[in-house]
């Protein structure tokens, strides 16, 4: 959660309509929203979901009474939007192929999608943490500071999640 006084000031300023303050909060927390979305919805829906969450957060930030809770509040909006997405989507609707990454010249679609699919198949506690580490590039201490999880929990999630991921990706290669 937002623990620094500076961040609380930014939240207060955003509540007063300060777009620049909200832009600074966006720079800190948007990767987390992106990770939550990437862990839950198809790749081609992620960007729209992130934008939707950010706009909702801007519109409703005045209802947040405790600025220190901004990060967790934002994360909860993202998770709820992901739930809404799945409820709106027709059951068994076919999904298009995942999109290429920006470096698809270097990596194949299949390897990226396989790795992402393997992470999404992990228990929920590990998915977000691993995506924050491996996709967004946050370190364990950064994940703990911004998400409100304890450092111990983050370390356990990373360790166990990575162990399961090695097993999944290893077993696919073996078969």
């Amino acid at each position, binding site marked *: 959660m937002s623990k620094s006084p500076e961040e609380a000031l930014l939240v207060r300023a955003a*509540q007063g309509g300060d*777009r620049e303050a*909200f832009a600074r909060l*966006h720079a800190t927390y*948007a*990767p987390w929203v*992106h*990770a939550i979305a*990437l862990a*839950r919805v198809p*790749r081609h829906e992620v960007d729209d979901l*992130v*934008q939707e969450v*950010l*706009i*909702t957060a*801007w*519109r*409703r*930030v*005045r*209802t*947040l009474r*405790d600025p220190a*809770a901004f990060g*967790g*509040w934002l994360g*909860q*909006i993202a*998770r*709820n939007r*992901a*739930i809404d997405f*799945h*409820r709106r989507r027709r*059951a*068994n609707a076919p999904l298009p192929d995942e999109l290429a*990454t*920006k*470096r698809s010249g270097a*990596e194949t679609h299949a390897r*990226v999608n396989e*790795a*992402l699919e393997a992470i999404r198949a992990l228990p*929920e506690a590990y998915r977000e943490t691993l*995506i924050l580490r*491996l*996709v*967004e*590039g946050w*370190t*364990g*201490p950064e994940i703990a500071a911004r998400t409100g*999880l304890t450092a111990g929990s983050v*370390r356990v999630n*990373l*360790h166990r999640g*990575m162990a399961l991921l*090695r097993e999944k990706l290893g*077993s696919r290669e073996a078969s």
Partner: protein
Amino acid sequence: MSDDYLWDRSGRPDPDVRELEDLLGGLRYDGALPELPPQDAASAGGGSPLLAMAAAALLTAGAALLFSARPAAPDTRVANPTPKPTPTAGWKVDWLSGEGAARLQVGDWIETDTRSRARIQVATIGKVELEPSSRLRLVATDPKQHRLELAVGKLHARVTAPPRLFLVDTPSAQTVDLGCEYTLTVAEDGASLLEVRLGFVAFEWKGLEAIVPRGARCETRPGQGPGIPHYRDAPLELRQALEVLAFAPADALRQRKLALLRAIGVARAPRDALSLWHLLPRVRGPFRRKAYAALARMVPPPPGVTAEGIQTLDRTMLAAWKDQMEWSW
């Protein structure tokens, strides 16, 4: 290898982690802030009920749980023009994070944040423990049925009651207690996982049923209902094959055939008979004949049960065969 590199990029780089960083780094967020519309006025409780719950869950200082009648404030209970007096006035809820106690009434939601847990007294028949990051609603409570809805998250239930008195709805199936203790996890996409510690639990959806005994587990998926139950320590190859047989499209014939052959090859008597029995209604034609043959080698069918009858899913024969093998589940 130490996990220091995974933790904070210190120490010797882990080659698997480095490879994944390189592979997945291209997905990193680099979006711009969208154009921002006018802000809403500062009024709590306005707008979407989900957002109201999300915001409210973090507003209450120190208390990690939220009660909310849908979708507005708890005052709607007080405003109910025909309140129904009950001897217990709702189910008792203890917040395990030390916040005190409260009452859960029909229609109320309870939501835990990332750190809080709750213990809920289920009428007079048992207890449910709700894990962090969960949302649960009391749907009904009367002498014939006690029913919850788990929208997302995890609960542990321990119930001592006649079968089918306690039910939990999830987005992809209904859990029917048959006298037991279990853990039910619902992911945000509506998929569920049931793990049974004591007794039996049934998963039901549109006529499809899965009986899950002690030590076994079963997944469900939205729009597809329950998968095929299997024991927690079943070989990975069997679990993977059962997943294909439960959830792959019906026209993925080659994939399903390979999965069936793998499942039959790996399944071991007597416990894996649980999975093969549940496989019978999931496959057709020659696949069902193969599944029957494998199951019959494990648990010879009793007199009166024939291959032809099982091929047509004769209910009497299926029930008789299940009675014979259920003791070993």
